[in-house]
């Protein structure tokens, strides 16, 4: 259980948010400031 949610719901929603943050952070690191 995850705050009273079924484990899979917590995992899917939490995983989606984490994935978006990781992808956007990777974008930040790969961004070339010179252009």
């Amino acid at each position: 259980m995850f705050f009273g949610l079924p484990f899979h719901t917590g995992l899917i929603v939490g995983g989606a948010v984490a994935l978006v943050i990781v992808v956007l952070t990777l974008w930040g690191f790969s961004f070339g400031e010179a252009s």
Partner: protein
Amino acid sequence: MADPITFVLIGLYFVVLIGIGSWASKKIHNTEDYILAGRSLGFWVFTILIICSVCSGMTLLGVSGFGYSSGWPGIWEQIFVPLSASFCIIVFGVKLQAVGKERGYMTIQDYLADRFESPRVLRGLSALSGIVVSLIYLVGQYTAISIVLVWLFGIPHWVALVIAGIIITGYTVVGGLYAVSWTTLVQGGILILGVLFMAPFVVISAGGLSHINSVLAGVDPNFVEPWFPSPAYAEYAFATPEFLVSFGILLMVGLACAPHVINNVLAAKEARYFKWSPVIAFGVYAAVMFLVKFTGFGVRALVEEGTLVLPATVNAQDFAFISGVEYAMPNVALWALFAVIVLAAVMSTTDRLMLTVGTMFAWDIYRNIFRPSAPDKEVLLVSKVAVVIAAGGTLWLAINPPPMLAWLIWMGIGVMLATFAVPLLAGLYWRGATGQGAIASMGAGLIAATVFGYWHQFVAPLPVHFSLYALAASALAMVTVSLLTASNSQDALDSTRTGWFIQS
């Protein structure tokens, strides 16, 4: 309902907005200053402007309402909508800001006209559809503002509209994007800090998130699932996997290419802001929206347990946020602050929409189609007059809102996706996309959005959001017509940095 503290706080808030407008008016020397704040927006002003252009007052009330009626399957809205800000910055912003600065674009229509070598037809078509969609949206915003003011002060609907209209129009007309962006920084700050502060009170007063979720599961076990099973078994259970895919595309891409959102990228001072603004915009916006959604869940739990009763209206769920805060925070000062938060959310979108309408009319239609020789001062004046007319017309419509307003607003977002997304994406990333292809794509998208939107509403519900069909029609028209027509000149493609890359 209003007490002296509420009056003073809202009065003070309005004085601050007018003060910013007055300060901003001294910085306006030409049309570029007015439309793009002289391309001078700093990191935080730009990032908050993008967030608040996407986040409207209806979003605030609608998000908790959707949480109230549909539970966790609707949570994807809180990922897709914040993602639209990041999508706009990365996919559109990086290239458009760089090319816009080099080639002096004032609007996205400047880009479309330049890239597709269609200075009149494509510019005119896109400006007209942008104006119509923005006006529909604007009527919705004014209606939301009047709901808040009527509920706060118990004043007549039209008085509320006139007060709000005069203040917003005043600072937008005198201060242009300088005023809009700096008032938005203030309004965005109030919105973000206010929700971060208040939403936890509602969740705690409803027994905490774990308790709320157990109550939701008791109402319908699918309320705590990540989506509803397909096909939809009830009116509230429309967030099925296939619907969520179309909903995600609509919100993420459709909102990103809305004229009042995408034009902000041209006003950013430096390209390096695009490095971290996507993740910061997403993080801040998602945190706020998750909390607002949780208040919707909390209010549903309170109602199910018989602790709270929502107003007996057809759209009772839209009062979830208001009722939840009223229940959790009896303190008058906090209550007044809450009123300012809702107003801030609505007004920060309204001013940006008005400026966008004025800009598209004055710059794209008046200056670039009808009077190319018009001096800068004349364009600036027309822009201000257009803002006043847009405000007056939409205020008048908001006094007697069209009966199908909610449907019209959803149509508006669908039309934005169907008409702007493909020409912009294909224009930026596909060298084979042609001007005729862009015109065909806009036309096909517009027609398909109207047909499928009408079909879904009045004939038979469609399994996915109607705009997805229109987007497919728009893409098909772009590819087919582009392959059949001659490419744009290499010079136009090179100077607009067209190609399969984000950063060259």
